[in-house]
């Protein structure tokens, strides 16, 4: 008999298989954030710029990847394989979570790569904290992936809508979370917007966790934001799947 977990595993391994059979694209996309890191970090003031920036860049690459969950789906909606999967007894949340995980798991490998590259340049991190941080991030990205899936279902007849909405939302989300530049010195309205952005709490949690500060309110805030986004995303995605015709 199948369970939600085995169904998720089926979807996840199906999604991952073409990547494993043809790993060049993933290797290429893994190098990308390193370039970003190399060109951006020297611009940041202060000696512990890496300490501040590395968790942010990990969040960013994870965010880019999971927000793409829907783009692969768009193609499969058009060719017919998504419809075929909807007729199987696979549990609906498994279709969302499995697809999102496929984007996230390579990003965990990427996070390890980023950290490994930065350690010789003086980046210090706490192993346990980093693992907890990645877990929170993965949870958040399952939610984001599910939203991306929902968006693809809503935009299935107009592919450009998917890309427009994805790009329009992604950058404000990133900037308002203080991933690239600190928000603390910004004007009041900007800080107010940042407080309404769930990603802000996740980024704060990542920074404190990578520094080894585990039992903090920042961790709790990040965890709550991530779980809320994941629950909301899966709920919206399953609903969209049931309604879509």
């Amino acid at each position, binding site marked *: 008999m199948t369970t939600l977990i085995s169904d998720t595993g089926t979807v996840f391994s199906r999604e991952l298989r073409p990547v494993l059979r043809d790993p060049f694209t993933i290797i290429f996309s893994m190098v990308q954030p390193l370039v970003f890191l190399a060109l951006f970090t020297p611009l940041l003031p202060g000696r512990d710029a890496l300490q501040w920036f590395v968790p942010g860049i990990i969040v960013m690459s994870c965010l880019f990847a999971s927000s793409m969950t829907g783009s692969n789906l768009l193609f499969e909606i058009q060719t017919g394989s998504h419809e075929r999967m909807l007729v199987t*007894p696979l549990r609906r949340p498994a279709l969302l979570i499995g697809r999102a995980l496929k984007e996230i798991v390579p990003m965990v490998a990427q996070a390890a790569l980023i950290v490994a590259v930065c350690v010789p340049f003086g980046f210090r991190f706490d192993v346990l904290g980093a693992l907890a941080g990645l877990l929170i991030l993965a949870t958040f990205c399952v939610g984001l992936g599910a939203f991306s899936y929902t968006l693809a279902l809503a935009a299935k007849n107009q592919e450009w809508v998917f890309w427009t909405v994805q790009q329009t939302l992604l950058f404000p989300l990133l900037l308002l979370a203080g991933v690239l530049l600190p928000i603390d010195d910004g004007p009041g309205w900007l800080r107010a917007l940042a407080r309404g952005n769930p990603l802000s709490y996740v980024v704060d949690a990542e920074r404190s966790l990578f520094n080894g500060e585990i039992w903090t309110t920042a961790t709790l805030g990040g965890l709550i934001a991530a779980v809320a986004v994941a629950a909301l995303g899966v709920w919206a995605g399953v609903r969209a799947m049931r309604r879509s015709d």
Partner: protein
Amino acid sequence: MIQTRGLTKHFKDVRAVDGIDLTVAPGELVALLGPNGAGKSTTLRMLTTLIPPTSGTAEVAGYDVVRHQREVRLRIGYIGQGNGAGHSQRGRDELISQGRAYGLSVRDARTRAGSLIDSLGLAEVADRRVSTLSGGQRRRLDIAMGLIHAPELLFLDEPSTGLDPQNRANLQEHILSLRAEHDTTIVLTTHYLDEADSMAERVIVIDHGRIIADDSPARLKAEHVGDRITLGFDAELDAAGAAATLAPLAPQRRGNRLVVTTQDAPRRVPGILDDLRAAGHPAAEVEVTRPTLDDVFLVLTGRSLREGGAAETRELVEV
């Protein structure tokens, strides 16, 4: 195997399916025939749990399609209009993950995939990317995917659309052998008349979301159209005289031709020719036309299926 009551689907203001009552017994092979937009695919999508009905009920393989979706999904196979196999995937991988989706163990899924690959003649292409396969190969792979869990009921939505005649014949052969070997109940939609005619024992004609006829192809033709005997004469005078001789058959005369509509024409022709010779109006030529399902559709709706739907209407707009 299938039982629907007043099955209806509205899309905004369009009644795509408008109160369908349908019963399909185990082991039947049924074709839903109708023009594009008649509601065939929408009906199929409701029966396969892809979309919920607006009203009415449907029980498929013993379970309600709204309340027990999972039970229905476990028991049916579905081959849609598109390609079930992902284009970036390998065929064999897709078959195995399809088997996993139905709860087969990895080992069973692998074995089952292997035997379907062999029986559908896919051995050479199963480990290639799906996007490199030909249309016919992809369609066979779709069939294999729909069969991975040996469903008792199989739905096919326009299975042969886009295939060349050879691949169509090949596909029809596979479907028929499936039925012969496993006694699978099969429901397919098509707008190919010959396909419905040659494969199905039961044809359900759908138009504007309603069932307008439901019978075997032979009975549909006999009941609604009948055979046509066209008799040609050397002179119009002969034709007029022949019309009088054949008056009980109610022939229609067009110039020096007579058209008689009847059942079982090939058996009646010799007798008719004898009568005409005896009456001194021998026929110069004779043609027997057996009706097609298109003729049935034409009689039922006043439109031809070949023209692909509604008669063209034009509105004059004055400024």
